[in-house]
């Protein structure tokens, strides 16, 4: 019984590693597929739909700045009590909103370029 479960588990593992369209006994791996195997080995949680929603939504949200005053004040309080701020561990390529607490020092000042372009020098 245990042996049966384990071999099932092994099959599932193999299916995750190899691209679904490739035959198991196919010895020819294109350079692109080899790169895919490499990537999946490094980031096993990478979504199945690469060009789909995740990437596109990240692209559409470029420039979005988030600020939560509750998180900010709690983080300030934690620092006061000499506790560590929660460490930021970005999973694969997604940023977790709310994990990084920006401080006024973190936010870059958005000033227009008063300096003339060096191309015109």
């Amino acid at each position, binding site marked *: 019984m245990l042996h049966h479960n384990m071999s099932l588990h092994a099959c599932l593992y193999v299916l995750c590693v190899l691209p679904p369209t490739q035959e198991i006994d196919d010895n020819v791996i294109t*350079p692109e597929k080899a*790169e895919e195997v490499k990537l999946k080995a490094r980031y096993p949680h990478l979504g199945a739909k690469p060009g789909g929603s995740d*990437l596109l*939504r990240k692209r559409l949200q470029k420039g979005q700045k988030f600020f939560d005053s509750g998180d900010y004040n709690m983080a300030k309080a934690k620092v006061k009590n000499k506790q560590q701020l929660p460490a930021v561990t970005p999973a694969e390529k997604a940023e977790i909103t709310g994990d990084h607490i920006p401080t006024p020092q973190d936010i870059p000042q958005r000033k*227009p*370029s008063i*300096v*003339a372009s*060096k*191309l015109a020098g």
Partner: protein
Amino acid sequence: MAGVAGGNDFQWCFSQVKGAIDEDVAEADIISTVEFNHSGELLATGDKGGRVVIFQHEQECKNRPNLRGEYNVYSTFQSHEPEFDYLKSLEIEEKINKIRWLPQQNSAHFLLSTNDKTIKLWKIGERDKRAEGYNLKDEDGRLRDPFRITSLRVPVLMPMDLMVEASPRRVFANAHTYHINSISVNSDHQTYLSADDLRINLWHLEITDRSFNIVDIKPANMEELTEVITAAECHPNQCNVFVYSSSKGTIRLCDMRTAALCDSHTKFFEEPEDPSSRSFFSEIISSISDVKFSHSGRYMMTRDYLSVKVWDLNMENRPVETYQVHEYLRSKLCSLYENDCIFDKFECCWNGSDSAIMTGSYNNFFRMFDRNTRKDITLEASRESSKPRATLKPRKVSTGGKRKKDEISVDSLDFNKKILHTAWHPKENVIAVAATNNLYIFQDKIN
């Protein structure tokens, strides 16, 4: 007209380089767009700092007919400034995404420049006369005492040193929820289109408070989003036709006469994919970063991550020509995905006669393809080969194990030195290549 590969008949040589030499490149100095005007007399650049610099082609020196004139600074101005949309908590970059010139109709020059959200029409005019002899004020501007004025005089126009002034004539704002990637002036010289990730709008150059939405691919449920608009362009002589490309490698041609909303296309261009070669990267590298009509209007060219394709507008099912830009990167896709280089948006351009095409690559390399001879060449924009009128030496990337002398191996390529923006003079063999914060100008050797 334009032979491409180094041969007996044709060679590219260095002409000028603009920009600072220092190693530390400020983000604001990174060039984000390059565009010749319709005569080639003016060359505009936009940068990440929101600034536009326009160069003008000096007249050739009569004493030295072998030298082509140089491009020197004509005008520079701050086009866009950083903004913050407090309602949406959105930071709006001042980076100039695109510059497009209007065809010249009078002595002034007009161009459209855009950042992620706002398009502006700029007038660049010359002033070489000024009125002198005002009645109510002195020459230095101080008001004259009215009681001291005993006679009236008529101000006279006197010549003065040439002054080039750039002034914003129109601001086309608040029409795009998403980030503008393209603007394109229509051949009717009255309208232009602007495209963001999900929508395309048609504007009249005189009207800033409204625009027509002509394409909207936003799904009702954003979870169902599968592709975005990556580039759009108006047809060069059919004012009712435009195309837009997508992140899935497809191009749609639309005819504005068919409907007010051009969601359904007139033509759909897509190259069939071999399903057995599909991988995680397939869709990402098929995303089209640029689309350009040929000057003739018969063809269009698309740039995806690894290749440039020429399409005949009469044939939708596959391109008529495919040129590999840097195929050796196919075995490096994993690391290019990790360092985000796989998302770099390269542009492409035609020469004036549509016989050659050019696009950029990494390591400050750029590639040219001659459509007639099928020859191609790789050149480098570097300070080392920047001696006046020095001929550019063809470069080669070695792909196999054995690296020949003068070849560079794929692993030695500098992926931070990307040439994303290039432009070809509309009439002559003069090209402008943007290498991060430097602008290189190359031209053919005049014998």
